[in-house]
């Protein structure tokens, strides 16, 4: 039996919604997708590095299929944990005031790499199997803009069809946008009432990296499942 661990830090009673309730609900949602049970892990007070170390040690157990935590609070440990953990983690963003009520509308931000596609494929399929609507979003920016867009109907049709076949599970539609990926992903999530974002990432929060993850956790309202992608996978184009 595997389980998803709800990592509970000091609750912020001043907030309209209990952080604990949010994290537990997120853990249950992830556990539902993974076919796992849930467990609660209360983190005792202390320096954040100590707390993160203890949590990582606890989450390293073999039966831990995933975890849930919050980006809220004065010193959340999620930033330390998400960069080191080997299993999917669902993070309740700092600005979230909602408690998850299941997963019905999922957003998959896709950067166009095979690594990301491979990283989230399983989780996306689980969401589909659970009856959720899953939509991929790809944001064109200077780093990934297509060289050619010959004609509005056919180029869109051909480009999206091929992108979807390469990067998305069947039954996942693709939304194309242009601009800053971090902002456009959140905009889509807010506009379409998405209740879960699944992001494959390289667990690198250094400057210039993981802007979408950073932005989603600090400015978004929608819980985010972060799926670590191995170094070997990241080397794929």
């Amino acid at each position, binding site marked *: 039996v595997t389980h998803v661990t709800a990592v509970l830090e000091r609750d912020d009673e001043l907030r309209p919604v209990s952080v604990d309730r949010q994290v537990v609900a997120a853990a249950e949602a992830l556990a539902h997708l993974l076919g796992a049970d849930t467990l609660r892990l209360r983190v005792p007070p202390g320096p954040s590095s100590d707390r993160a170390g203890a949590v990582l040690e606890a989450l390293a157990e073999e039966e831990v299929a995933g975890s849930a935590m919050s980006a809220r609070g004065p010193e959340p440990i999620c930033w330390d944990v998400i960069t080191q953990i080997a299993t999917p983690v669902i993070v309740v963003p700092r600005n979230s005031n909602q408690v998850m009520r299941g997963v019905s509308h999922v957003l998959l931000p896709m950067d166009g790499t095979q690594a990301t596609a491979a990283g989230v494929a399983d989780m996306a399929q689980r969401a589909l199997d659970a009856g959720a609507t899953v939509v991929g979003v790809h944001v064109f920016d200077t780093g990934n*803009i297509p*060289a050619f867009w*010959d*004609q509005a109907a*056919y180029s*869109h049709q051909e480009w999206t*069809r091929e992108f979807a076949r390469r990067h998305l599970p069947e039954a996942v539609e693709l*939304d194309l946008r242009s601009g800053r990926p971090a902002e456009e992903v959140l905009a889509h999530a807010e506009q379409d009432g998405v209740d879960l974002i699944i992001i494959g990432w390289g667990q690198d929060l250094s400057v210039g990296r993981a802007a979408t993850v950073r932005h989603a956790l600090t400015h978004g309202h929608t819980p985010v499942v972060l799926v670590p992608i191995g170094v070997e996978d990241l080397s794929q184009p």
Partner: protein
Amino acid sequence: VTQPLTRATPDLPAPGAGSRGAGELLGRTVGAVVFDWDGTAVPTRRASARGVRTRLERLSALGIHTAVVSGTHLGNIDGQLRARPPGPGRLLLGLNRGSELFEVTAAGPTLLGRRDETPDVTQQLDSAAAAVSSRLRAAGLHVEVVSSRLNRRKIDLIPEPGWADPPKARIGELVAAVTQRLGRAGFASVGEVAALATAVAVQGGLADARVTSDAKHIEIGVTDKSDSMRSIRGHLDRLGVSGELVLVVGDEFGELGGLPGSDALLVVPENRGSIAVSVGVEPLGVPQGVRHVGGGPATFRALLDEQLHRSTRLRVPEICDDPRWTIVERGVDAARHRVTESLFTVSSGGVGFRGSVEEAPGFGHPLLVAAGVYSGPGVTDGLLHGPDVVDLQLRPPVTEDVRTLDLRTGVLHRAEVSNDGDPVRSVRFASIVEPGVLAMRIEASTGRIHTHPTNGSDEWAAVTSPSGGGLGALAHQDSRRSARVRSVQRIIAVDGSPTGPPRVATARRTLARAKGTGFERLLAGQRSTWAGRWEGVDVRIPEDPETELGLRFALFHLWGLSLKGSELAVGARALTGSGYSGHVFWDADVFVLPALCTIDPPAARAVVDYRLNRLAAARDRARAEGREGSRFPWESAVDGRDVTPEAGYVGGEQVPILTGTLEEHITADVAWAVVHQAIWTRPGARLTKNESLLLRDTARYWASRITTDPDGSAHIRGVIGPDEYHERVDDNAFTNAMARWNLRTAAHHAPVQEAERAAWSALAEALADGYDATSGLYEQFQGYFDLQPLLVREIAEPPVAADVLAGREVIAGSQLIKQPDALMIHHLLPDDAVPGSLRHNLDFYAPRTAHGSSLSPAVMALLHARAGQPDTALNLLRLSLRIDLDDLGGTTSAGVHIGACGGAWQAVVTGFLGARVSRGWLHLDPILPSQWPDLEVRFRCLDRDVRVRVSDSQMVVNASAPLTVTLSPDCRYQTSTSTQVRFVPGGMP
């Protein structure tokens, strides 16, 4: 992928044991066998050659070519062999040690070439032979000059009765005896005598003396077997049989008495990749690269039997793997597979077979389509998808393979990378001997291939469209099993019709012919016909093989459009995919047709016929819009009505598509294409009646479309030019220039009354083209210069879909353009552009060009070349050539961008070579990039095959018929020709 010899010498049949059941010696199927005679094919001159004769004749019937190389003369070889091959496989005889080449047909031998012995050579050879003999005799050695042969003299080193005619099986004893004899005279080896002979011959004036030895003789000559091999190589080139497909068999490759064996001369650099096998004794071993199997003539016959056996077992033949001619894909990459399906499409007779792997995995998109056969007349109806003719199953599936498209022969080959001794291998080609026929074979270990059709019967499958068109395929499958391998062969005849159901009777006739010809002969014809294509149309850039290969890839897919006697609807992805719904754009008229004029004029004619056959629809549209004449649709399909979609997406932004209503230059583009085709392909350039009517109707359209202001100026308002970033613009320079050309040309050539001519001429002169004499620039449209002066590098590195990146509104408000627009005047109508204005306009517009259209880089390459910037042009040409090979736009899975292919070829012919045609004369003005010291371009022009080779300061032009070539006044090349080409300096007439 080559396979090593599967058996080493100990497993070979013993000499004289016969070849039946000898099994696989090579493990591969070749296209030609070149072999030595004495000791290789026959043990002695007196032996029966019946076994060789019957095998050669059977190989000939299969289309496998053979060639004998021997030092002796025709009487000896033909008298002993007496083969009368039925063809199509050719039998060549390279005789008299390189001095004569014969071809033997069912009617007997015919001399193809001879190097005659001149009196000087006679004297020099006699003198040399006499001098060497004299030196040897002086040393106490009795020798004889035993015979005089064409271009050589033989000195018998051991004129003793016991060694009068030694069999090759005794070669070791012979060498020992001769060496011993020479040693008594103070010579260490035959090689030392050969060195003496060479020195004497050179001293006597034979600078290129060829001194050889068979151990018994020293021969002094001016030719040797390498000359035979080169002559044969030349013939094999013309038959499309490259070195990798040639088996060379001899018995004397190894050193003999200090000299290379005589058959070592058969291994020439020109025959790169050939397989050399020695069946001789080879007492001192064989040179590196030669496989020694021994066994003498019996093994030679076994090698021939293996080829015959592989044919009857339907084994997969080899292809050329020359990197200058092949597109190679390694590994099974699900993400790239659909791209390679497009790249590896093979087409003939207007039918395209996508390059899907045989087992059609779920990530593939197999497709059979036919030009002009649509699933319906509507906007969303694309090319009709024909039945799946390749589908079969492989269990277990292939996990790694190498697929190779041999551009030289139009054959697609596949080989599984596996430790299994019998990997999956397959080959297929769209026959150009029987257009519309696909021939394929696949082999794998027994039990792995699972097929649906029944062996031996013909199975028909068809798809019809609701609008009445249809596409059907009649497939015949054969299968053979050997001990470990099962081979499956299918020959498939396709019939398609844009307006009616597919005709099984037609397909049956085609299939019957193809089956009667047989796979091997279809393949032989495929090789030779493709070789003929490349002989006439090709590019050779020795210092830039990547660009050369890219251009050959472009030519290959343009050749795929080859079609005679029918109209040709060239969709934006040709026959390589379902992209763009197979709709016909201006790509067909302006990018593909000019290329086809230089490649395959009948296909260019067929493109024109497609438009001519839809002139009535164009008239209907003009009438419906309250105009005169004919207006051609921006997107055209089965019936000539406009099938442009009304909405689409730029990135993720939904947008209305206005090109169907506003991109009107297509009407003049069609007229331009009709006239261009006449100018390039017909001496005299006369238009047919229907072509003249099209020219008249398109001019009438413009006359009714153009508005004249009170000041007398004429305008075309509310259009879209080639730069589709800016919509609903007034007086688009290109549209106006094309309309003006249309009116002017029609005024000269269309069948109308004088008053109408005069009106057209007046209107043409009143039409603004946006040229500003002060700035020297063409303004792309009214108000363009007032837009935000944005340069493309301010937003991204080109090529870039700027509208997707920055948004349509931003781009529409800027001077960024999708592709050349005003500059297209300089491309299509160079004589109408203000003289000297290209460079200045290029300097202005190039930094504003995003290349957001795949058509853009090639045209800009052409223009930069014409503007004297060949290095910039080369970079753009390379970009254009990588569009599909590297899937730069992410849409090659939907098919190859055939317009970019045509544009790239035009960039070479019109751009770098500066080729134009006017009044029946070809004009040339080459300019080469610094990375190309040499360029050779072969193309069709004015019903002639033309070859232009440019290197250093020289330009050599040859043509298949008398041709006048004009040169620029400042032409920097010295010209020469060996044919009836007349050079006229001073520019175009």
